[in-house]
Protein backbone atom coordinates (compact mmCIF):
# COMPACT_ATOMS: atom_id res chain seq x y z
CA UNK A 1 0.00 0.00 0.00
CA UNK A 2 1.54 3.36 -0.97
CA UNK A 3 2.37 5.78 1.78
CA UNK A 4 0.78 9.23 1.85
CA UNK A 5 4.05 10.70 0.60
CA UNK A 6 4.03 8.56 -2.57
CA UNK A 7 0.26 8.55 -3.12
CA UNK A 8 0.03 12.34 -3.50
CA UNK A 9 2.53 12.60 -6.43
CA UNK A 10 0.88 9.56 -8.03
CA UNK A 11 -2.48 11.36 -7.94
CA UNK A 12 -0.88 14.48 -9.41
CA UNK A 13 0.65 12.37 -12.21
CA UNK A 14 -2.70 10.84 -13.05
CA UNK A 15 -4.36 14.27 -13.01
CA UNK A 16 -1.66 15.58 -15.38
CA UNK A 17 -2.10 12.55 -17.65
CA UNK A 18 -5.88 13.05 -17.68
CA UNK A 19 -5.44 16.50 -19.24
CA UNK A 20 -3.50 14.95 -22.18
CA UNK A 21 -1.09 16.74 -24.51
CA UNK A 22 -2.02 19.69 -26.72
CA UNK A 23 -2.45 17.32 -29.68
CA UNK A 24 -4.70 15.08 -27.56
CA UNK A 25 -6.92 18.02 -26.62
CA UNK A 26 -7.11 19.07 -30.27
CA UNK A 27 -8.19 15.54 -31.19
CA UNK A 28 -10.82 15.61 -28.45
CA UNK A 29 -12.24 18.92 -29.69
CA UNK A 30 -12.31 17.58 -33.28
CA UNK A 31 -14.05 14.41 -32.08
CA UNK A 32 -16.72 16.35 -30.15
CA UNK A 33 -17.34 18.74 -33.07
CA UNK A 34 -17.66 15.77 -35.46
CA UNK A 35 -20.07 13.96 -33.14
CA UNK A 36 -22.19 17.12 -32.67
CA UNK A 37 -22.30 17.72 -36.45
CA UNK A 38 -23.28 14.08 -37.02
CA UNK A 39 -26.02 14.31 -34.40
CA UNK A 40 -27.42 17.56 -35.87
CA UNK A 41 -27.37 16.11 -39.39
CA UNK A 42 -29.20 12.99 -38.21
CA UNK A 43 -31.83 15.07 -36.43
CA UNK A 44 -32.49 16.92 -39.70
CA UNK A 45 -33.00 13.59 -41.43
CA UNK A 46 -35.84 12.61 -39.05
CA UNK A 47 -39.00 12.98 -41.15
CA UNK A 48 -41.74 15.31 -39.94
CA UNK A 49 -45.15 13.98 -38.95
CA UNK A 50 -46.70 12.20 -35.99
CA UNK A 51 -44.41 9.85 -34.05
CA UNK A 52 -44.62 6.37 -35.55
CA UNK A 53 -43.17 3.18 -34.16
CA UNK A 54 -41.58 1.12 -36.94
CA UNK A 55 -40.67 -2.49 -36.19
CA UNK A 56 -38.26 -4.25 -38.54
CA UNK A 57 -36.79 -7.72 -38.86
CA UNK A 58 -33.69 -7.18 -40.97
CA UNK A 59 -34.79 -5.28 -44.05
CA UNK A 60 -38.46 -6.18 -43.64
CA UNK A 61 -40.96 -3.84 -42.00
CA UNK A 62 -43.04 -6.02 -39.67
CA UNK A 63 -45.37 -3.40 -38.23
CA UNK A 64 -45.97 0.32 -37.98
CA UNK A 65 -48.01 1.96 -35.21
CA UNK A 66 -48.57 5.52 -34.02
CA UNK A 67 -47.77 6.08 -30.36
CA UNK A 68 -51.24 5.96 -28.80
CA UNK A 69 -52.64 8.81 -26.71
CA UNK A 70 -54.77 6.47 -24.60
CA UNK A 71 -56.28 3.02 -24.38
CA UNK A 72 -54.77 -0.39 -23.74
CA UNK A 73 -51.11 -1.09 -24.56
CA UNK A 74 -50.45 -2.73 -27.93
CA UNK A 75 -48.39 -5.93 -27.88
CA UNK A 76 -46.50 -6.73 -31.07
CA UNK A 77 -45.00 -10.22 -31.32
CA UNK A 78 -42.08 -9.74 -33.67
CA UNK A 79 -40.64 -12.98 -35.02
CA UNK A 80 -36.88 -12.76 -35.42
CA UNK A 81 -33.99 -15.11 -36.12
CA UNK A 82 -33.96 -16.77 -32.71
CA UNK A 83 -37.55 -16.41 -31.55
CA UNK A 84 -40.34 -13.97 -30.80
CA UNK A 85 -39.76 -10.59 -29.16
CA UNK A 86 -42.72 -9.07 -27.33
CA UNK A 87 -42.76 -5.32 -27.99
CA UNK A 88 -45.19 -3.09 -26.11
CA UNK A 89 -46.43 0.27 -27.39
CA UNK A 90 -48.32 2.43 -24.91
CA UNK A 91 -48.84 6.08 -24.08
CA UNK A 92 -45.32 6.28 -22.59
CA UNK A 93 -43.64 5.03 -25.76
CA UNK A 94 -42.28 1.67 -26.84
CA UNK A 95 -40.24 -0.98 -25.06
CA UNK A 96 -39.24 -4.63 -25.27
CA UNK A 97 -41.24 -6.65 -22.77
CA UNK A 98 -39.45 -9.93 -23.51
CA UNK A 99 -36.94 -11.28 -25.99
CA UNK A 100 -35.21 -14.63 -26.57
CA UNK A 101 -31.70 -13.11 -26.68
CA UNK A 102 -29.13 -13.88 -23.96
CA UNK A 103 -27.92 -10.39 -23.03
CA UNK A 104 -31.39 -8.74 -22.85
CA UNK A 105 -29.83 -5.44 -23.88
CA UNK A 106 -33.03 -4.61 -25.77
CA UNK A 107 -35.07 -4.91 -22.57
CA UNK A 108 -32.49 -2.97 -20.57
CA UNK A 109 -32.73 -0.13 -23.11
CA UNK A 110 -36.07 0.76 -21.47
CA UNK A 111 -38.88 2.85 -22.93
CA UNK A 112 -38.25 5.15 -25.91
CA UNK A 113 -40.59 7.88 -27.06
CA UNK A 114 -38.58 10.56 -28.89
CA UNK A 115 -38.35 10.79 -32.66
CA UNK A 116 -35.07 9.24 -33.77
CA UNK A 117 -34.91 6.88 -30.77
CA UNK A 118 -34.20 3.25 -31.54
CA UNK A 119 -33.98 -0.07 -29.72
CA UNK A 120 -32.18 -2.97 -31.35
CA UNK A 121 -32.07 -6.65 -30.51
CA UNK A 122 -29.01 -7.73 -32.48
CA UNK A 123 -29.19 -11.52 -31.92
CA UNK A 124 -32.86 -11.56 -32.98
CA UNK A 125 -32.24 -8.94 -35.73
CA UNK A 126 -35.20 -6.82 -34.57
CA UNK A 127 -35.08 -3.03 -34.74
CA UNK A 128 -37.65 -0.67 -33.23
CA UNK A 129 -37.38 2.87 -34.49
CA UNK A 130 -39.45 5.98 -33.79
CA UNK A 131 -39.94 8.17 -36.83
CA UNK A 132 -41.65 11.54 -37.11
CA UNK A 133 -41.19 14.59 -34.96
CA UNK A 134 -44.55 16.37 -35.09
CA UNK A 135 -47.57 16.27 -32.80
CA UNK A 136 -49.23 12.96 -32.00
CA UNK A 137 -52.36 11.98 -33.82
CA UNK A 138 -54.43 8.86 -33.72
CA UNK A 139 -55.80 8.89 -37.22
CA UNK A 140 -55.20 5.16 -37.61
CA UNK A 141 -54.33 2.26 -35.35
CA UNK A 142 -51.46 0.62 -37.17
CA UNK A 143 -50.23 -1.32 -40.15
CA UNK A 144 -49.01 -4.88 -39.75
CA UNK A 145 -47.44 -6.95 -42.51
Amino acid at each position, binding site marked *: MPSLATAAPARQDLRRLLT*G*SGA*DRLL*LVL*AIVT*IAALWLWMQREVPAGPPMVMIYH*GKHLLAEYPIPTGGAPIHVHAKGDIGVSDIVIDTHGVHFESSPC*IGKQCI*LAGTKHHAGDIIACVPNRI*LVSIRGSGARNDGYDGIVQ
Partner: protein
Amino acid sequence: MNATAPDRPDLDRLRAQARWLSLLLVAIGLHVFESALPSLGPWFKPGLANIVTLLALVMLGPRAAVTLALGRVLLGSMFIGTLLTPTFFLSLSGTIAATTVILAAWRWLPGVSLVGISLLGAMAHMVAQFVVVEHFYIQQPALYHLLPPMLLLSAATGWINGALAAYLCARVRP
Protein backbone atom coordinates in the same frame (compact mmCIF):
# COMPACT_ATOMS: atom_id res chain seq x y z
CA MET B 1 31.97 -39.07 -27.89
CA ASN B 2 31.54 -35.42 -28.77
CA ALA B 3 28.49 -34.06 -26.91
CA THR B 4 27.29 -30.62 -27.89
CA ALA B 5 25.52 -28.34 -25.44
CA PRO B 6 21.85 -27.80 -26.29
CA ASP B 7 20.95 -24.34 -27.60
CA ARG B 8 19.90 -22.14 -24.75
CA PRO B 9 16.94 -19.86 -25.39
CA ASP B 10 17.67 -16.18 -25.62
CA LEU B 11 16.80 -14.68 -22.22
CA ASP B 12 15.55 -11.39 -23.64
CA ARG B 13 13.21 -13.24 -25.94
CA LEU B 14 11.94 -15.41 -23.11
CA ARG B 15 11.39 -12.34 -20.96
CA ALA B 16 9.38 -10.67 -23.76
CA GLN B 17 7.29 -13.81 -24.23
CA ALA B 18 6.62 -14.00 -20.49
CA ARG B 19 5.54 -10.35 -20.46
CA TRP B 20 3.27 -10.89 -23.46
CA LEU B 21 1.67 -13.90 -21.79
CA SER B 22 1.21 -11.99 -18.52
CA LEU B 23 -0.45 -9.11 -20.37
CA LEU B 24 -2.66 -11.55 -22.31
CA LEU B 25 -3.86 -13.10 -19.06
CA VAL B 26 -4.61 -9.68 -17.59
CA ALA B 27 -6.46 -8.71 -20.79
CA ILE B 28 -8.54 -11.91 -20.72
CA GLY B 29 -9.31 -11.28 -17.05
CA LEU B 30 -10.51 -7.76 -17.84
CA HIS B 31 -12.53 -9.04 -20.81
CA VAL B 32 -14.33 -11.54 -18.56
CA PHE B 33 -14.70 -8.96 -15.77
CA GLU B 34 -16.33 -6.48 -18.15
CA SER B 35 -18.80 -9.08 -19.35
CA ALA B 36 -19.80 -9.70 -15.73
CA LEU B 37 -20.30 -6.01 -14.94
CA PRO B 38 -23.88 -4.78 -14.64
CA SER B 39 -24.89 -3.18 -17.93
CA LEU B 40 -23.93 0.47 -18.17
CA GLY B 41 -26.27 0.85 -21.14
CA PRO B 42 -26.97 -1.07 -24.31
CA TRP B 43 -23.78 -2.02 -26.18
CA PHE B 44 -21.67 0.01 -23.82
CA LYS B 45 -18.53 -1.41 -22.25
CA PRO B 46 -15.79 0.69 -20.66
CA GLY B 47 -13.12 -1.02 -22.81
CA LEU B 48 -10.70 -1.70 -19.94
CA ALA B 49 -8.96 -4.46 -21.91
CA ASN B 50 -7.78 -1.83 -24.39
CA ILE B 51 -5.51 -0.47 -21.64
CA VAL B 52 -3.57 -3.73 -21.88
CA THR B 53 -3.33 -3.45 -25.69
CA LEU B 54 -1.80 0.01 -25.24
CA LEU B 55 0.62 -1.35 -22.62
CA ALA B 56 1.66 -4.15 -25.01
CA LEU B 57 2.20 -1.60 -27.78
CA VAL B 58 4.52 0.52 -25.64
CA MET B 59 6.33 -2.35 -23.89
CA LEU B 60 6.56 -4.98 -26.63
CA GLY B 61 5.78 -3.33 -29.95
CA PRO B 62 3.03 -3.36 -32.62
CA ARG B 63 3.12 -7.07 -33.46
CA ALA B 64 2.71 -8.06 -29.81
CA ALA B 65 -0.16 -5.57 -29.42
CA VAL B 66 -2.04 -7.01 -32.43
CA THR B 67 -1.62 -10.66 -31.39
CA LEU B 68 -2.57 -9.80 -27.81
CA ALA B 69 -5.74 -7.96 -28.88
CA LEU B 70 -6.85 -10.80 -31.17
CA GLY B 71 -5.89 -13.49 -28.65
CA ARG B 72 -7.81 -11.69 -25.92
CA VAL B 73 -11.02 -11.56 -27.99
CA LEU B 74 -10.73 -15.21 -29.02
CA LEU B 75 -9.85 -16.66 -25.60
CA GLY B 76 -12.02 -14.20 -23.65
CA SER B 77 -15.03 -15.16 -25.78
CA MET B 78 -14.34 -18.83 -25.08
CA PHE B 79 -14.32 -18.13 -21.35
CA ILE B 80 -17.60 -16.22 -21.36
CA GLY B 81 -19.28 -18.55 -23.85
CA THR B 82 -19.87 -16.10 -26.69
CA LEU B 83 -17.50 -17.60 -29.27
CA LEU B 84 -18.94 -17.29 -32.82
CA THR B 85 -22.06 -15.47 -31.55
CA PRO B 86 -22.96 -11.92 -32.70
CA THR B 87 -21.25 -10.62 -29.54
CA PHE B 88 -18.00 -12.27 -30.62
CA PHE B 89 -18.12 -10.84 -34.13
CA LEU B 90 -18.90 -7.37 -32.78
CA SER B 91 -16.02 -7.63 -30.36
CA LEU B 92 -13.68 -8.93 -33.07
CA SER B 93 -14.59 -6.26 -35.62
CA GLY B 94 -14.29 -3.51 -33.02
CA THR B 95 -10.93 -4.82 -31.85
CA ILE B 96 -9.52 -5.09 -35.39
CA ALA B 97 -10.62 -1.52 -36.17
CA ALA B 98 -9.39 -0.12 -32.85
CA THR B 99 -6.01 -1.86 -33.08
CA THR B 100 -5.51 -0.70 -36.68
CA VAL B 101 -6.28 2.90 -35.74
CA ILE B 102 -4.12 2.69 -32.60
CA LEU B 103 -1.15 1.41 -34.61
CA ALA B 104 -1.64 4.05 -37.33
CA ALA B 105 -1.88 6.85 -34.75
CA TRP B 106 1.16 5.49 -32.86
CA ARG B 107 3.15 5.42 -36.10
CA TRP B 108 1.99 8.54 -37.89
CA LEU B 109 0.57 11.07 -35.41
CA PRO B 110 3.47 12.81 -33.68
CA GLY B 111 2.63 14.67 -30.49
CA VAL B 112 -0.38 12.50 -29.73
CA SER B 113 0.09 10.62 -26.46
CA LEU B 114 -1.52 7.36 -25.36
CA VAL B 115 -4.53 9.43 -24.27
CA GLY B 116 -5.25 10.64 -27.82
CA ILE B 117 -4.38 7.26 -29.32
CA SER B 118 -6.81 5.54 -26.96
CA LEU B 119 -9.50 8.11 -27.80
CA LEU B 120 -9.17 7.36 -31.52
CA GLY B 121 -9.09 3.60 -30.89
CA ALA B 122 -12.24 3.68 -28.76
CA MET B 123 -14.14 5.66 -31.39
CA ALA B 124 -12.94 3.34 -34.18
CA HIS B 125 -14.12 0.38 -32.09
CA MET B 126 -17.60 1.87 -31.79
CA VAL B 127 -17.90 2.84 -35.48
CA ALA B 128 -16.79 -0.64 -36.60
CA GLN B 129 -19.38 -2.28 -34.35
CA PHE B 130 -22.16 -0.14 -35.80
CA VAL B 131 -21.08 -0.86 -39.37
CA VAL B 132 -21.03 -4.62 -38.70
CA VAL B 133 -24.39 -4.58 -36.90
CA GLU B 134 -26.00 -2.50 -39.64
CA HIS B 135 -24.52 -4.51 -42.48
CA PHE B 136 -24.95 -8.07 -41.19
CA TYR B 137 -27.68 -8.02 -38.54
CA ILE B 138 -30.11 -5.11 -38.36
CA GLN B 139 -29.79 -3.87 -41.97
CA GLN B 140 -31.56 -0.57 -41.27
CA PRO B 141 -29.74 2.77 -41.57
CA ALA B 142 -31.96 4.08 -38.72
CA LEU B 143 -29.57 2.23 -36.42
CA TYR B 144 -27.02 5.00 -36.93
CA HIS B 145 -29.22 7.34 -34.85
CA LEU B 146 -27.66 5.62 -31.84
CA LEU B 147 -24.13 6.32 -33.05
CA PRO B 148 -23.55 9.95 -31.84
CA PRO B 149 -24.34 9.32 -28.15
CA MET B 150 -22.39 6.07 -28.19
CA LEU B 151 -19.42 7.82 -29.83
CA LEU B 152 -19.52 10.46 -27.12
CA LEU B 153 -19.43 7.78 -24.43
CA SER B 154 -16.62 5.91 -26.17
CA ALA B 155 -14.61 9.16 -26.50
CA ALA B 156 -14.91 9.69 -22.75
CA THR B 157 -13.94 6.13 -21.84
CA GLY B 158 -11.15 6.11 -24.45
CA TRP B 159 -9.70 9.27 -22.93
CA ILE B 160 -9.78 7.88 -19.37
CA ASN B 161 -8.39 4.50 -20.46
CA GLY B 162 -5.55 6.24 -22.31
CA ALA B 163 -4.65 8.22 -19.18
CA LEU B 164 -4.68 5.02 -17.11
CA ALA B 165 -2.50 3.25 -19.72
CA ALA B 166 0.01 6.15 -19.69
CA TYR B 167 0.02 6.10 -15.88
CA LEU B 168 0.70 2.37 -15.80
CA CYS B 169 3.33 2.58 -18.56
CA ALA B 170 5.28 5.11 -16.52
CA ARG B 171 5.39 2.65 -13.62
CA VAL B 172 5.61 -0.75 -15.29
CA ARG B 173 8.05 0.02 -18.10
CA PRO B 174 11.64 -1.07 -17.24
